[in-house]
């Protein structure tokens, strides 16, 4: 490999921090992680040229997202919605964590506008759920002025501790959130992000929010604790197929992304069809990037986004995918269980998933609380930048013991110096919310370019056909499935 083969660029400017209650005031951060000396950026489409080209970021700006969403909605039947009806657009906080949140906000605005225009219905509400961090959706609604857009009081954040409603399924009763379902019709407006592959395993990806963002704690607990295996994803399917949901369900609209950015939108009245298209899309669009992470043999991970640990992004790949990159989680024969009531006994059997040993240290320049993360600090050398941020973490009821396992550095530079000394590597990857490329050290850039061609070949020839077959998909008939333009 020559130097010319390794295409690097100046660091990508990440999205600005979002000021929310789960993070220290971002104004107090003195230096961003991409400003660390020696950091360069690598474009994902230089690594994998066959990755679908994004429409956003792009020359048309956010208008491209509106156009793609409106186009996807043209094939959707909305005739069931009458002017006198009420409609809940169901959303989730996760979508707002991509590219500053504007693309997802624009999908939500577009769905509202198109439904209103085509049906004459004026009573369209937004119900935005959360996984953890009960107030996060409300903060996004305020920031993107969605309450004004939908009409005062019509856009609200909902949380798993809000009033519940029983949902009878073919296997028994689960619980949803009453305010998610308090309308004549629901529209499921989400995104396809790979996110937590270790849970959803790319099976029925589109359905998962019915067991998560729109669900009560009892249902979420079942998913994470008393199921917690590959089969947990059936809970979402059972809820979605229940008469309770079916009699309200109108259609789904999805923001479609890949590591390069927004690649389009998709929508359908048939959720099973849509979910399978998304699963195929994600196998194609994330498979190589996920397997490339497995090629990193040693690395320091640096966090610098207004998101918690697992949900911080580098080139559109959430950190938890690096955390589990050493196991092929697309392969359904692998168990991939790391929590829940079976995790400890499974580890004793040698069947559980331990954290990726390639991560040698992690540095927290800026990160949100609101996700239990102390187990990571127990496993990896952890360096927290700033005493104030350390105090913030110590006050989070989900991370009361986090700082018991971390050290504090007053500056990012001091943190990096210490991290390099204990990790004994120059490989650095930054999780700062970038899409299209990733901010890394030069040594890691070189490694990624060395490994990408072989990974591409292995995924195309061996892994992708296997992943497809396991899900009952015909390999080779996929790319045309989603009209992303």
């Amino acid at each position, binding site marked *: 490999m020559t130097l010319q083969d390794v295409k690097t660029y100046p660091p990508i400017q990440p999205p600005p921090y979002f000021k929310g209650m789960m993070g220290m005031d971002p104004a107090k951060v003195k230096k961003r992680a991409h400003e660390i000396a020696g950091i360069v950026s690598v474009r994902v489409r230089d690594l994998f040229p066959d990755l679908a080209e994004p429409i956003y970021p792009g020359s048309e700006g956010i208008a491209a997202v509106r156009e793609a969403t409106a186009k996807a909605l043209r094939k959707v039947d909305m005739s069931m919605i009458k002017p006198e009806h009420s409609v809940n657009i169901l959303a989730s906080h996760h979508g707002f964590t991509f590219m500053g949140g504007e693309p997802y906000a624009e999908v939500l605005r577009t769905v509202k506008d198109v439904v209103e225009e085509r049906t004459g219905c004026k009573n369209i509400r937004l119900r935005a759920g959360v996984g953890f961090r009960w107030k996060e959706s409300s903060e996004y609604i305020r920031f993107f002025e969605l309450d004004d857009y939908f009409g005062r009081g019509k856009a609200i954040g909902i949380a798993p501790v809000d009033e519940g409603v029983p949902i009878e399924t073919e296997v028994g009763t689960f619980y949803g959130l009453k305010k998610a379902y308090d309308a004549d019709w629901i529209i499921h407006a989400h995104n396809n992000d790979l996110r937590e592959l270790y849970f959803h395993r790319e099976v029925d990806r589109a359905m998962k929010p019915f067991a998560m963002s729109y669900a009560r*704690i*009892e249902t*979420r607990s079942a998913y994470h604790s008393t199921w917690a295996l590959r089969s947990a994803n059936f809970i979402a399917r059972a809820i979605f197929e229940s008469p309770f949901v079916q009699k309200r369900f109108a259609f789904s609209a999805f923001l479609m992304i890949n590591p390069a950015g927004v690649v389009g939108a998709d929508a359908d009245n048939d959720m099973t069809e849509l979910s399978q298209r998304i699963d195929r899309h994600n196998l194609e669009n994330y498979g190589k990037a996920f397997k490339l992470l497995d090629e990193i043999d040693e690395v320091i991970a640096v966090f610098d986004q207004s998101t918690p640990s697992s949900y911080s992004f580098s080139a559109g790949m959430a950190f938890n995918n690096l955390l589990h990159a050493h196991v092929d989680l697309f392969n359904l024969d692998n168990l991939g269980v790391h929590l829940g009531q079976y995790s400890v006994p499974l580890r004793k*059997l040698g069947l559980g998933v331990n954290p990726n040993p390639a991560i040698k240290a992690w540095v927290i320049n800026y990160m949100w609380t609101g996700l239990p993360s102390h187990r990571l600090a127990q496993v990896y050398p952890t360096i927290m930048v700033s005493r104030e941020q350390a105090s913030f973490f110590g006050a989070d009821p989900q*991370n009361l013991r986090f700082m018991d396992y971390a050290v504090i550095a007053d500056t990012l530079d001091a943190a990096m110096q210490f991290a390099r000394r204990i990790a004994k590597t120059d490989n650095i990857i930054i999780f700062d919310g970038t899409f299209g490329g990733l901010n890394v050290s030069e040594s890691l850039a070189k490694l990624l370019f060395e490994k990408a061609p072989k990974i591409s070949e292995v995924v195309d020839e061996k892994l992708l056909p296997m992943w497809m077959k396991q899900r009952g998909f015909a390999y080779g008939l996929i790319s045309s499935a989603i009209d992303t333009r």
Partner: protein
Amino acid sequence: MLSLTRYARVDEGLCTGCGICELVCIAECISIAERLPQIDLEYCNGCMNCLYRCPDDAITMEERTEPRELYIDPNEFDQRQIDEICEKTNMTPDVPVCGCHGITAAEIAAAILKGAKTPTDITRMTGARTGCKSMCIQPILRLLRGAGVEVPKSKGWQWYEITPAIYEIPHKTIEKYQVFRMKDDIELVNRILKGGGKA
């Protein structure tokens, strides 16, 4: 040992008396009197549910002068009884039911043997449910049932009922949805519960 250092405080000038804080309080330490929340600081775990769900941003967290320390030692109870409760719940005693704070099934079972009758009692005694407030409710409800406790309906929205677990799924469903690998997973769970390698 869980050390809790914070408690909730209400700004009476901002509070509109909507009562949502009372409905979501996992320790049931909030009650509305004369349209204002009264907080029993003896039991407030500082879980922040009230703060997160307050529509008026009327709740803040304050530092305790002395931490509130919670722990029930399973070793002080008959190990056979703890094992029996866990076994009836299809759990092993060493499983962290509350992942945020590492509170095990054995400690929850010990709290039940000490007299806990509801998830609220368990929260007050062990601190479970103080973290994410999301993962642990099913194992807690199941451990209570495994001990023969009939859990009443919650006073607010603190908990609903036990939902189906993987090992309770009918055969026809397993066959119908094979992509979810339920058959394999159930075999695995049975293998765990039978003591590991003895499939």
